[in-house]
């Protein structure tokens, strides 16, 4: 039964979307009308600036996020509660994060106003500000800040599986300082374990479309953004460029995934051979800086939500005043009519796809548990995260063809979201599920429960917290989906994300803030509910825990 279900899920949500999507993209590449042509290849190759920017974003942003996360991670060892800060930050969708960050850090942003109100040095928005509203650098900053909590969460999961504290002590007894022990003794193993999450981050950065549409340069668009734009120009020539561009993204993806697979090994060699600098102090400047960064990160997340709220109720707010001159709910009232449908669509899509994602991930993990030898992460389940979204969703569009125009698009949008909620739910659940102590199930069965009853009455209740966290993560993954919703929905399933991008990319940050705020609130509510559920569970023992007490 579990095996049959697992095969069906793998077919419908892994083989069909990835295999089918890429196959259709391949077939269409030979189409006489809109296939790959020399002209299209030449156009792509001549987009030198787009290619360089694309590579820069896909290589530099993930690397900065990765090493920043590793630099901050010793804080997780000292204060494991910091991990609880990460989930809510992770739940803020990229688009809302980008809108909030712009409202904070753009030349007329809240932080600049704060500097002006304290120092009086900036009576006008600064010229030549390093973080303009639209640039490749801004895209990178948003991506780094958004990938950081994801990678920290992945590192936190790994730190529960490796005896990092013992390794640190061991290395220090050899003469390494605390920081050196971290970078030379622990990091090589962590980097190896981060290979798959890093692959997902790299591929996301390579093919992200919504963030560059919001904060990217209009004149030097990234390749994924160019492909996205070409698909909306319906001439055969543009379609040909789109297909060629999609393949260019695939080629870059393969190259980057190959380099990513070498990363941990190269680092390991460096860590073993590079000479050490004398560093004797126990609490170094780096430690203090890391601590300040953690605090700044917490404040930044709160400030983003605060500025979104302020902007959404500000009726007039001119530079350089720190607080809005007047507050009103006018903008909410006038936009409410337009907000209801996207909100409704976002909620039902996220609830459905998150629920399905968690159930399917449990089935896949249960199947994996039953095959006792294979308990490591199954990369095949995550494969949708390793294929750039632009070519993949383009392939789905071709694969589904007429189905998308016969009123079925809503179902296909839900399906496309589930393709992405399954791997994320699997990633979150994997550790807890595969390491669940078999003894509990054996004990329950020795008391007369069937294997199925033991699973239902003992295992699932004991895994309630990771299951709830997986649901919350899957929920926010669905809320953040832009490309599949836009392309498969044909504009008939507007969500908060698609509307936030279309409003804010037009430069209207004020209206954009309403959508961004709602987009943030929905997953945040789910995360807080999950937190309350976990806290409540600690106070009130579940049947399974009472059972555990008496056994």
């Amino acid at each position, binding site marked *: 039964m579990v095996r049959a279900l697992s095969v069906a899920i793998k077919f419908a949500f892994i083989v069909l979307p990835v295999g089918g999507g890429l196959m259709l993209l391949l077939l269409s590449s030979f189409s006489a009308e809109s296939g790959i042509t020399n002209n299209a290849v030449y156009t792509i190759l001549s987009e030198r600036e787009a290619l360089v920017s694309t590579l820069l974003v896909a290589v530099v942003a993930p690397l900065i996020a990765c090493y920043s996360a590793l630099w901050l991670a010793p804080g997780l060892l000292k204060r494991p509660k910091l991990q609880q800060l990460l989930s809510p930050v992770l739940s803020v969708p990229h688009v809302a994060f980008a809108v909030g960050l712009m409202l904070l850090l753009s030349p007329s942003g809240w932080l600049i106003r704060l500097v002006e109100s304290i120092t009086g040095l900036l009576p006008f928005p600064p010229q030549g500000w390093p973080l303009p509203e639209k640039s490749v650098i801004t895209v990178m900053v948003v991506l780094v800040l958004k990938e950081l909590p994801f990678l920290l969460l992945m590192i936190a999961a790994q730190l529960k599986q490796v005896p990092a504290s*013992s390794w640190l*002590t*061991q290395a220090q007894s*050899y003469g390494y300082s605390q920081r050196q022990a971290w970078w030379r003794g622990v990091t090589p193993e962590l980097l190896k374990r981060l290979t798959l999450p890093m692959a997902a981050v790299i591929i996301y950065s390579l093919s992200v479309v919504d963030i560059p549409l919001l904060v990217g340069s209009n004149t030097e668009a990234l390749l994924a953004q160019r492909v996205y734009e070409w698909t909306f120009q319906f001439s055969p020539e543009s379609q040909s460029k789109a297909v060629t561009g999609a393949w260019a993204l695939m080629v870059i993806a393969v190259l980057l995934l190959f380099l990513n697979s070498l990363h941990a090994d190269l680092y390991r060699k460096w860590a073993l051979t590079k000479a*050490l600098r004398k560093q004797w102090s126990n609490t170094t400047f780096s430690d203090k800086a890391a601590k300040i960064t953690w605090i700044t990160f917490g404040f930044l997340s709160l400030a983003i939500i605060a500025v979104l709220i302020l902007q959404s109720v500000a009726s007039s707010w001119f530079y350089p005043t720190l607080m809005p001159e007047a507050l009103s709910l006018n903008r909410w009232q006038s936009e409410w009519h337009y907000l209801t449908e996207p909100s409704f669509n976002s909620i039902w899509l996220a609830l459905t796809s998150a629920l399905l994602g968690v159930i399917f991930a449990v089935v896949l993990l249960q199947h994996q548990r039953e095959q006792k030898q294979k308990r490591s992460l199954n990369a095949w389940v995550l494969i949708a995260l390793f294929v750039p979204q632009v070519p993949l969703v383009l392939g789905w569009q071709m694969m589904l063809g007429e189905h998308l125009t016969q009123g079925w698009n809503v179902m296909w949008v839900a399906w496309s979201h589930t393709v992405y909620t399954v791997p994320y739910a699997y990633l979150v659940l994997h550790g807890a599920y595969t390491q669940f102590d078999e003894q509990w199930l054996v004990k329950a069965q020795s008391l007369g429960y069937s294997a199925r009853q033991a699973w239902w009455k003992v295992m699932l209740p004991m895994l309630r917290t990771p299951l709830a966290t997986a649901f919350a993560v899957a929920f926010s993954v669905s809320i953040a989906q832009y490309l599949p919703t836009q392309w498969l929905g044909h504009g008939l399933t507007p969500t908060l994300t698609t509307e936030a991008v279309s409003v804010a990319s037009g430069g209207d940050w004020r209206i954009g803030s309403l959508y961004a705020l709602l987009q943030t609130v929905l997953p945040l509510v789910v995360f807080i509910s999950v937190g309350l559920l976990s806290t409540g569970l600690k106070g009130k023992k579940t049947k399974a825990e009472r059972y555990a007490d008496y056994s």
Partner: protein
Amino acid sequence: MLTIRNLVIFSEMTGSSNRLLLRLNSLDIKPGEVVTLMGPSGVGKSTLLRWVLGEPLPNFSAEGELTLNNNDIGQLSVAQRRIGMMFQKGGLFPHMTVAENCLFAQKPRSTLNRKAQAEKAMSMLSTLGLNDKWNHYPHSLSGGQYSRISLLCALLAEPKAMLLDEPFSALDANLKEEVRDWTFQQLKENKIPTLLVTHDRTDAHGRILTVNEDKEIVDD
């Protein structure tokens, strides 16, 4: 010589006064000497070793003087104290081969170049008849091989004193005696003062200390 004077360790209790965990008035361990501290679990043996090593003790407060070869090392970091360790679990980094573990252990303190470091480690492995394990990962070693290479790495880091925490408890009876004798012989040859803690009397060596009812460490 490793010297401890007037040491008191308290466990910090929330909402009430601190509870005395251990007291040690005076302990001198000469070069090459092994002193064994015995006692059941929970008396604070491992906490004492962690204090000597210089690890932070978040739920304890400790006061006392610690000197190594007449130098006060009480305020130094773990790295600066030059005290080696060999604990029951671990000792070798599982993601590094034996060769990499040996080189990793020598990197911070050795004045030799990398090639000479490798030769030194290889010759020590050869005396154990384990040079064929040079490129093996620790998980492929037997219990005895693991323990010996673990001590070898600790010695390669050129420690001036050594701490052993139940280092033989994971070994089976036959192997235990062989590894134990070899370990004590190495420590003696290298003139390293060593503090061993164990709850197993058969593992004890040299002068034996115990913890009495007043939580004081005294000669057995």
